[in-house]
Structure formats: C-alpha cells, structure tokens
C-alpha cells in the first residue's frame, strides 16, 4: 500500500471512529427500545418496520418527516447559537409562541390591506412583501422574548434557565388571551370554538414546495413548504456567522470562557443578550413558519405543545445531535422529524403508544451526550498529534497509539479542540 492511499484510508477510518459514538448511541437506543417492545409483547422488527415506513416509506411520509423537521431545525439553529454563547435556553416553546403571535398578526393585517375582503377567498399569488414582513415580525418578537431572558441574565443576574421556563408559561397564557380576544376569528366569534385566528389569505401563505422531477413533481401533493428551504439557507448563514465573523467569534468566546473574554475586552453582557436574542429569533421563526407554511392560522388548545408540537424541546435535542453546529443540525432535525412521524405510524399500525418514542428520544439524548467524552478524546489526540509531529508520523498509527480509555487530562483543552474541529 503506498503512503498516500494509507493516509487517505487512515483519515477515513479516523472519521468513521469519530462518528462511532453517535452510531453506538443510536444502537444502544435501538437495543433498549427493542427490550421495551419485547416486554410489551410487540415484535420489535415489525415496530421498527412501521416506523421506517411511516418516516420515509412513501413520498408523503418523507414530506411529513421534512415538515416535522422544519421547526425543529429553526429552533435547533437558535439553540446552537445560545449554547455556543454559553446560554442554556429552555425557552424555545415560549419564543415560538411569541413569534407566531406577532408574525400571524402581521400576516393578517397586511393580508387584509393588500387583498380586498371579497377577493380573499379566491386564490392569489403569494406576496413576497407580506410573507417577508411576517417572517421578520416573527423573528423580532421571538428575539425580543429571548432577548428579555438575556437582558435579565446580563443586568440582573437572573438565571436564564429560570426565566425561560417562566416565560414559556407566560407566553402560553398570552396566546390563550389574545386568541380568545382581539385575534379571535370574527367568523367563529359566536360559536364557542377552540380559540383561533382567521385563516391567512393565500397571499400571506408560504408556498408549498415541490421538486421539479418527474410528473407530477415530487412532493406536489404533500404539505412540504418553503419553510424548509428558508431554514436550511439560514443554517448555512449562521454557520458562516459563527465561524467566519468576528461577532460570531465573540459569542463563542463568551460561551467558552466568560472571564477570559472579559479580560480580552469583549463586552460579555452584550454577547449574552445577543446570543439569546438570536436564539429567540430563530425559535420565533419556527413559530411563524408553522402558521404561514402549514396551518394558515394560529390556534390554541390551551397547552404549549398543542401549537409548538414540543419543537422548542426537540430543537435542543437536534442541536445537540448536530454537534452544536448549524449544518449538523440539518440532518439531525430530519432524523428526529422522521422518528416522531414514524412513531405515529407505529402507533396507528400496532397500537404501541407513541410515548415509547418520547422515552427513546430521551435515551438517545442521554447516550449521545454521554458518548461525547470519547469524541473529545479523539479529536484532542489528533490535534496534539498534529501539533507535535506534523510531517513524520504516519497517521494510520494514531488510531492505536494510546488506549482509548485514557481520561482527557483537563477540561480547558476540550472546548478548544471542539471549536477547532467544528471550524
């Protein structure tokens, strides 16, 4: 084997080993859920088969997986920024609601202005101005709501975990109040309905998305909408922001070491507010996109998850699974979207409650965060190898050169190596 090929092979192996912990975590989750299924007298293979079928088995299933993934991705991008900035944002749910309330209001008002009432029922082309304004409105509302928690932390020392948990509850009640009051659909005002807004006019809706392949186009008869494209584009933007701009660098610096950043002249409080502002903004986008792209009206059953579908929490899971990297959050969101949609299919077909998947999701989170320690060891080892022996050492030896069970020797090194790896 010549040296170049050996190097390439080694680097492939290296990369494979990097992914191993995630794969092992998934495998463990698979084993545990199989055990649970067997305990429930269900054939695990049949259960997983239905899950797979429900997630990607048909064109519509695949579309629904992506539809489910869209808000999770938005929230996940925001969570990535927050966690990179050292802020534990549990407020995705409330920020989604804030964004949806503001964005829907903008869409309703502008929709009425630009489309006369008598034309509202007839289909009209989507209006870039209305939709963009609504998206911006949703972003800003979510951002202010998240930024409020950042402000309280920066200037009053109010822990963001505490404030975001409380703000979630407050947002739900605000939604119940507004939807049962000034935002209530005038058409149903007398009918004792679930509180909801009027339906958005077509011009205020995000268009459905279809791929121009085949006839009819792929996804033409599904609920897939342009929100997905917006989310993916923004994931790339935020990746560039975090690792290629000085502002992004400052956010990450504060997250990695608050005190050192402060000594280095970084305005720590401002970065805290900024990372929460952006995190909230993305959650707000998740909320408004659910309305503009999917439901076309905002409604509440009094619970937060009734509207958010718990994307505020699942976004945390996806952000983590994506390695706190916005690009990584894309496949991670798709994965969890598929898991959630597939679980519903499993419940439909063999009556296993979808709560099983909630539990398994939890396990995956625990396994993945637990396995991070092994990834960190490897990447650190690689970094130190590069530092010491840049030219001479054949890379394929590195895999077995020291025992993988060695504990990492200090906590300071691990974050640095993470950042390098991600950048």
């Amino acid at each position, binding site marked *: 084997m010549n040296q170049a090929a050996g190097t390439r092979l080694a680097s492939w192996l290296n990369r494979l080993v990097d992914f191993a912990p995630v794969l092992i975590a998934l495998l463990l989750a698979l084993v545990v859920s199989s055990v649970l299924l067997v305990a429930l007298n269900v054939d695990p293979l049949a259960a997983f088969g239905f899950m797979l079928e429900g997630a990607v088995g048909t064109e519509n299933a695949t579309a629904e997986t992506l539809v489910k993934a869209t808000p999770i991705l938005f929230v996940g991008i925001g969570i990535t920024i927050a966690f990179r900035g050292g802020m534990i944002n549990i407020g995705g749910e409330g920020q989604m609601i804030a964004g949806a309330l503001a964005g829907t209001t903008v869409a309703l008002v502008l929709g009425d202005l630009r489309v006369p009432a008598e034309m509202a029922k007839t289909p009209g082309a989507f209006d870039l101005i209305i939709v963009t304004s609504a998206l911006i409105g949703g972003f800003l509302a979510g951002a202010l709501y998240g930024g409020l928690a950042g402000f309280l932390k920066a200037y009053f020392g109010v822990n963001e975990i505490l404030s975001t948990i409380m703000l979630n509850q407050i947002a739900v009640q605000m939604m119940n109040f507004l939807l049962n009051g000034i935002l209530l659909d005038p058409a149903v005002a007398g009918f*004792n309905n679930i*509180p*909801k807004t009027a*339906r958005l006019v077509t011009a205020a809706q995000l268009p459905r998305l279809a791929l121009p392949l085949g006839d009819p186009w792929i996804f033409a008869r599904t609920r897939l909408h342009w929100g997905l494209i917006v989310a993916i584009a923004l994931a790339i933007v935020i990746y560039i922001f975090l690792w290629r701009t000085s502002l992004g660098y400052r956010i990450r610096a504060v997250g990695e070491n608050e005190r050192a950043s402060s000594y280095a002249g970084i305005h720590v409080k401002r970065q805290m507010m900024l990372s929460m502002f952006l995190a909230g903004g993305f959650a707000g986008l998740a909320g408004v996109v659910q309305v503009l792209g999917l439901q*076309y009206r905002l*409604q509440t059953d*009094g*619970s937060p998850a009734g509207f958010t*579908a718990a994307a505020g929490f699942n976004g945390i899971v996806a952000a983590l699974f994506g390695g706190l990297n916005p690009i990584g959050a894309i496949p991670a969101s798709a994965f969890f979207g598929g898991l959630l949609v597939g679980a519903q299919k499993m419940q439909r077909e063999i009556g296993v409650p979808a709560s099983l998947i909630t539990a398994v999701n939890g396990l995956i989170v625990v396994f993945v965060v637990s396995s991070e320690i092994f990834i960190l060891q490897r990447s650190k080892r690689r970094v130190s190898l590069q530092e010491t022996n840049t030219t001479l050492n054949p890379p394929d030896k590195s895999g077995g050169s020291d025992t993988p069970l060695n504990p990492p020797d200090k906590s300071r090194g691990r974050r640095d190596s993470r950042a390098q790896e991600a950048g």
Partner: protein
Amino acid sequence: MKKALLLTLIVALFAGVMPTIAQDVFRVAAVAPSATNDLAFSQSMYDALMAIQMQMGEDNFQFDFQDGTFIVDDAAVALREWAASGDYDLVIAHGSQFGSVVEELAAEFPEVSFAWGTDHNTFGLDNVSAYTAAADEGGFVNGVMAGLMTESDVIGVVGPIEVGDAKLYVDGFVAGVGASNPEATVNVVYIQSFSDVPLATEAAETHIANGADILTGTAQMVVGPIAITIENGARWFGTQASQADLAQGAGVGFQVYKWEVVLSDIIANIQAGNLGGQSYELTLANGGLVMEFDG
C-alpha cells in the same frame, strides 16, 4: 333435472357473490386528541365506534383509531394518510382544533367523506359532515339536580378553557342551578388547561374550602377534582363520559355523549351515496345525550 342443476348453479353463484357484497365492510378511521380511556371527550368517540361495531357486526364495520394526537400536525399526518389511501368510507377528526386540516384535506380529496366536531361548519363542502353536542342540555339537567341537592348552597365548577362544549356545559349547568335553586351560588374556575391535573385538583380543593358540597367539571383533568370530591364526602356531576367508576359512589349524574346517534346518520347517508354537507347535533331529544345516574 336440468332445471335443478341450473337452480343449484344460480344458488351457488349467488352464494359465491352474496358474501362478497355482504363483506363490503364500512371502514372508518378517527383521530382524537386525548387517550381512548380518558373518561372524557376522546373516550366518548371511541365508545361510540365500539357501539356501532357491536350494532353492525365486525364483518360489516371496522375502524382504526389514533388517540393522543393533541398535536394538530400528528393528527394531520394520520388524516392525510387515511384520505390518500382510499381505504376508508369515513374519516373522523374528533376535535375542533382539527378544523383547518379537515378543510384543506376535504377540498383536496373530494371523493373521501370526512366528519369532524365539535363544530357546525362544513366549509360549504359536500364531503364534510360536522357534529356538535348540545352539552348545555345535560348541563342544565345536572344543574337542576345539583341545585336541589346542595345543602350549603355553594356549588363549584372546574373548567378547562372557556370554549367549545366545555363552555356550553358550564353555562347550561349554571342556568340549571339558577332554575331550581336561585339561592345557590355557583363558583366557576377555568384553569386554562385541559390536562393540568394538579391545578385542577387544587381548584377543587379551593371550591370545597369555600363551602361547595357539589362539584362538576369537564375535560380530561377532572380526574383530580373527582378524587377530591370523594375525599371530602362531596358529590360529583360529570359530562362527556360516565365517570361513575372513578367517582366510587360520589358521582350523581353524568351526561354521556352517544356519538353513535350522529354517526349512524352519517354512515347511512354515505351508504346512500351522500358524502356529507350536513351538520348534526347530539341532543337529549334525539338520544345522542343520555343522562346516567349513580347512587
């Protein structure tokens, strides 16, 4: 001889054909937001489908049921899959939060019949049936009885959010108490949640502390208030489904939804080739609302 043979042949032919006609099973699929055994809204629909299956026989009527879809999008996925499959004669969305989904799907699949509730709105579509319950009627009956039974002249109500048949029931109940016992006070608390059991429980405690000797409430979180009713020796009036077992003798009157009354009409219509376009209502008069009494 030849005639006999022909006859046998015809009989055999029909015998061969008849079962396939009879086996033209009526297939229904339904989503509901809470569990099928929630002793409330979702259970009422599940029980109704079971009742129809008993009535029509398993060979003629089958249903798929997905419960726990309080997330509207989860319901939307199931509804779309069922509609697109073409396997179902009727697709039911049990919950007024599913209206937008039904409106969109029914327009997209005009050959599929949909039913949803509780609402009057068929969206002007010929393949949508809407159903409601005149929950105020049974609420009124419960209220009249509660007004007569109360000794403290204080009655407590634990409601979820002030909408839908929850509001109808509570308003009917308050009117009923007013009709039979104008002296009595009815204290109403909406806890702003269908599912927050601890808060509903403490709301019931607060009612008791303020002198209530009779409680009522609606939504799946009433299981907490029922437990408090038992503990304090008070009496309970319920709605949507019978909670007599859980109330262990503390229950008095239950307004039980018999959706099968509405569903039989809808099914008959569909079998006659009429996919929808009508709105239905459960009332005491049409037997869709039944009062059950315990103790």
